[in-house]
């Protein structure tokens, strides 16, 4: 009987080796913005674990997600791991078998230890001779068994920006961290390890392999084969047999699990609403993405507001609608705002007509608040807020915003003098003075994301120069590599001063970003500096600008010492962001950036011009071989050591003996003269072309001349010639940094 059953099982196993995997984590509402990343992470984790367990067989993991669920499926995974064979080598053949070929005690002992009969031992030839070997087979496990260990681990390993506990650990000893700070002690960490954490409480789990439940527990929830529909419109306890019926059953229970399907539904609804009224949605990709992940069954409804609110600035109206209510603003054909909004609701429709009314009521109160702040704020002059900034802390050690504004004015003045001479000093100073004044306005306290913009609007309404108002409005820009830089030069100067001060200040008090922690958004500030300098084409010495920022800090508070080491650290930090910008935004290769930066990058605009020239020349036939030659030169010089290479001044042309080296020297002198002229007038392309023309002379030199000559004086002279060459021609870009096919 038993053997029959086993045989039957084996036969069944043969006919079906693969089956579908399906997984759903049912959760209380996950913050919408975290969902796309979590879904991707689920995919990566499943791929990793399935592959490691030998179950994936190259199949693809499909993932979906929404506010109440993360789901994944794999069409065909192994139902059983393959057996693994391992060969173990034992004693040498001569020891294992006697002359007659019989197994000795050594062979018998080895076989017994490996658990195989002596007859199954065999001989393995290796470079070191012939050895006895045995094969050990580890039988593969059923995928169901493997997966019940893997899946809880996958759930625990999804990383969230901030996760939580909601249930006690399985008998984990409770330990509390006493004291005012929420510091994590060793005790809480130890307890935390046993307590399940997730972004929000997990309420159900579906885990199926080939239609069978993969049984496991996570945080008191037992996996099963039932999911739940829409909270208000769908059923609970819907039976799932696999990915196919999962999607369709959920759809009929008012859940669209595929974000693409939700997005399509929203887009179609928006279009239909707009067509009717001859209106347009104010485009907002971020909001569209957010509402796609905020709803399981999104529908759009059109609402109205009192046209009287349209005399408030559109920036304010749009912000209130978008950031506070997640409504789309609506525009008339000409682009001006229409007294409508679109709300995306998590229902199939507004069945009683009450929802539209409710949203209109909330928006009315929000707009009334905004109108109150607008009127109240405008009653006092923006500049009068300066005094109030003494009450607003920027950073505990760096003082108040008032202090920051004073530093920004100093740095701005320096920037006008050294990088933006066409600016009016007084205009820039006024813009810097007003830049932070909106922070104590009622409007910014209520709508912090409008900082800068509100200041700009108030400045304009109170009759400040347009240049000043626009500069205040723009000075937080750019917030990303994609965002525009400030519109006018005054705005660029104030924005640079703001960011330089943030960087210098935070570096001075030790708030230097590490890893992913960057609470003061210093990377963004540094990226902003790079972007403004490059796009506004400002000639600016980073080194001196940084020094000016630290000096402003020091002049305000002598406790902040000027430290060249710190200045260098900050410069490297900014240059790091510059490398990132050059790679991401301008698609330069990293070796081109290395080569250019090796020749200096203090003047970013100049570095950008040299980079462009380098990229252009790189495609010409002489360039790569020359780069190889320069690398060779550098290697030779480094290998010879500094003692062997004389100063360039000690070079003696009279000691050159071979024709090839004389020719190289002559060519180098000629090229240097031209290249210097081009470089002087920043014609880097021509300069590099000139340098490239050295290639035949360099090649011949290496063909004919033995650098490491026996006569030490000649040898030193030749090394000095090469060192001079390397130095002379590396001022635009260090060619030896270029990665060539021939380089090792």
């Amino acid at each position: 009987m038993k053997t029959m059953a086993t045989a039957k099982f084996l036969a069944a196993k043969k006919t079906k080796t693969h089956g579908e995997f399906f997984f759903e984590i049912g959760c209380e509402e996950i913050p919408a913005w975290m969902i796309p990343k979590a879904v991707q992470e689920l995919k990566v984790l499943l791929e990793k674990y399935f592959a490691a367990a030998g179950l994936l067989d190259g199949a693809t993991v499909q993932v979906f997600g929404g506010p109440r669920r993360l789901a994944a499926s794999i069409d065909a995974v192994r139902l059983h791991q393959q057996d693994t064979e391992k060969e173990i080598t034992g004693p040498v053949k001569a020891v294992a078998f006697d002359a007659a070929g019989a197994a000795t005690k050594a062979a018998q002992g080895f076989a017994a230890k490996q658990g195989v009969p002596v007859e199954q031992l065999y001989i393995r030839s290796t470079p070191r001779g012939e050895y006895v070997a045995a094969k050990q087979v580890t039988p593969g496990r059923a995928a169901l068994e493997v997966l019940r260990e893997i899946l809880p681990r996958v759930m625990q390993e999804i990383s969230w920006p901030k996760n939580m506990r909601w249930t006690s650990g399985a008998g984990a000893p409770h330990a509390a961290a006493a004291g005012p700070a929420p510091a994590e002690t060793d005790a809480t960490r130890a307890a935390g390890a046993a307590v399940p954490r997730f972004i929000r409480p997990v309420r159900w789990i579906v885990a199926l392999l080939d239609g069978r439940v993969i049984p496991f527990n996570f945080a008191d929830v037992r996996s099963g084969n039932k999911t739940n529909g829409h909270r208000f419109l769908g059923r609970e306890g819907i039976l799932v047999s696999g990915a196919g019926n999962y999607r369709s059953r959920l759809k009929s229970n008012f859940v669209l699990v595929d974000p693409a399907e939700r997005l399509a539904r929203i887009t179609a609804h928006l279009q239909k609403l707009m067509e009717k009224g001859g209106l347009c949605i104010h485009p907002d990709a971020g909001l569209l993405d957010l509402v796609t992940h905020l709803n399981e069954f999104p529908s759009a409804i059109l609402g109205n507001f009192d046209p009287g609110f349209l005399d408030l600035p559109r920036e304010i109206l749009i912000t209130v609608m978008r950031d506070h209510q997640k409504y789309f603003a609506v525009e008339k054909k000409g682009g001006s705002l229409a007294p409508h909004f679109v709300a995306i609701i998590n229902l199939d429709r507004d069945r009683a007509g009450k929802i539209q009314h409710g949203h209109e009521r909330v928006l009315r109160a929000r707009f009334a608040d905004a109108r109150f702040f607008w009127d109240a704020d405008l009653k006092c002059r923006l500049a009068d807020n300066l005094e109030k900034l003494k009450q607003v802390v920027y950073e505990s050690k760096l003082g108040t915003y008032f202090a920051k504004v004073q530093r920004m004015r100093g740095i701005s003045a320096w920037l006008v003098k050294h990088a933006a001479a066409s600016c009016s000093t007084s205009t820039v100073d006024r813009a810097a003075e007003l830049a932070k004044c909106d922070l104590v306005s009622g409007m910014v306290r209520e709508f912090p994301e409008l900082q800068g913009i509100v200041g700009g609007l108030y400045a304009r309404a109170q009759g400040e120069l347009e240049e000043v108002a626009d500069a205040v409005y723009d000075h937080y820009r750019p917030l990303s590599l994609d965002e525009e830089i400030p519109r006018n030069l005054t705005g660029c100067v104030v924005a640079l001063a703001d960011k330089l001060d943030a960087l210098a200040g935070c570096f001075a008090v030790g708030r230097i970003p590490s890893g992913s922690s960057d609470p003061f958004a210093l990377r963004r500030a540094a990226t902003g500096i790079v972007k403004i300098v490059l796009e506004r084409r400002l000639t600016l010495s980073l080194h001196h600008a940084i020094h000016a920022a630290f000096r402003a800090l020091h002049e305000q508070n002598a406790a902040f010492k000027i430290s060249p080491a710190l200045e260098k650290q900050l410069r490297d930090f900014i240059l790091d962001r510059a490398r990132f910008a050059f790679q991401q935004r301008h698609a330069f290769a990293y070796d081109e950036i290395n080569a250019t930066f090796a020749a200096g990058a203090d003047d970013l605009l100049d570095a950008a011009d040299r980079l462009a020239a380098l990229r252009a020349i790189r495609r010409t036939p002489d360039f790569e071989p020359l780069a190889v030659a320069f690398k060779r030169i550098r290697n030779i010089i480094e290998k010879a050591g500094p003692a062997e290479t004389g100063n360039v001044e000690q070079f003696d042309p009279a000691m050159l003996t071979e024709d090839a080296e004389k020719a190289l020297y002559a060519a180098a002198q000629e090229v240097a003269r031209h290249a210097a002229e081009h470089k002087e007038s920043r014609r880097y392309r021509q300069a590099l072309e000139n340098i490239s023309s050295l290639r035949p002379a360099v090649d011949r030199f290496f063909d004919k001349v033995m650098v490491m000559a026996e006569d030490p004086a000649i040898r030193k002279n030749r090394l000095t010639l090469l060192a001079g060459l390397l130095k002379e021609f590396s001022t635009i870009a260090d060619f030896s940094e270029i990665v060539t096919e021939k380089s090792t």
Partner: protein
Amino acid sequence: MTPRPAQGLTFQRMIFRLLEFWASRQCVIQQPYDVEVGAGTMHPETFLRVLGSEPYRVAYVQPSRRPADGRYGENPNRLYKHQQLQVILKPSPADVQAVYLKSLAAIGIVLEEHDIRFEEDNWESPTLGAWGIGWQVLLDGLEITQFTYFQQCGGLDLDPISVELTYGLERIAAFLQGVDNVFDIRWSDDRTYRQVRLAEEQQFSAYSFEYADPARTRALFDLHEAEALALLSAYREAGDDAKKRVPILPAYDLCLKCSHLFNLLDSRGVISVTERAAMIGRVRKLACGVAASYVEQTSPRTAPAVTA
């Protein structure tokens, strides 16, 4: 029950319904605390009950004073004192969201006729050394409830985790009754919110912004703080047997007094930046001191051995 959507429940009837709803779900119905607080969380029935391991369920209305939010009764939405209905469920039940939604149905909200959603909103109170993870519950775009899984309170990690539901009663009532101004809410069948509360809003706004004497208010803060610190240090220094007798609950009242006096000084605009951070730190120190002493005082001396 028959919902009356056209008129909605009166303010007081809505409160009765919610309290009855939670009473039928094993909640102790408590009364508002008789010391000024800024939120229902500060009531000892929340702040102290969520500490330690003892299961507990409680619901109560808590009038909450926020001096800086006073508007002399002239703003349709902002109040010096608003009413919160606070529910604590410890430990958090697995069906807590569904039960909460039923409570909305109990006050006449037909769930599938409205856009109800749970949107990320984590709660934090620096003065209480407390924070939690959760959502604001939106009803057709209107924030009606703060829904929080407490993670830490008084600087202590919590286990079990309590769930806290804080209903904003004026907002919900205005919504149910279809009025735009909280003062137009019908409090009872024949009285409006204005008739019941307007004078209080006017007088306490004036006191918070104009009349509260900064020097005396500061002195009161210092006095209450000193008294609380004295109790906490008496507890620390007491021997094991004497510890049970040292009054910790009054120390918490004193801590609440400090918190309110701080809010008052803040609304008077007399607290400098550095002072502000320092005063928050002083109140938090009291709150954390109370929490730690309370947990120690109420926990059984011989905890059962825990085995994995």
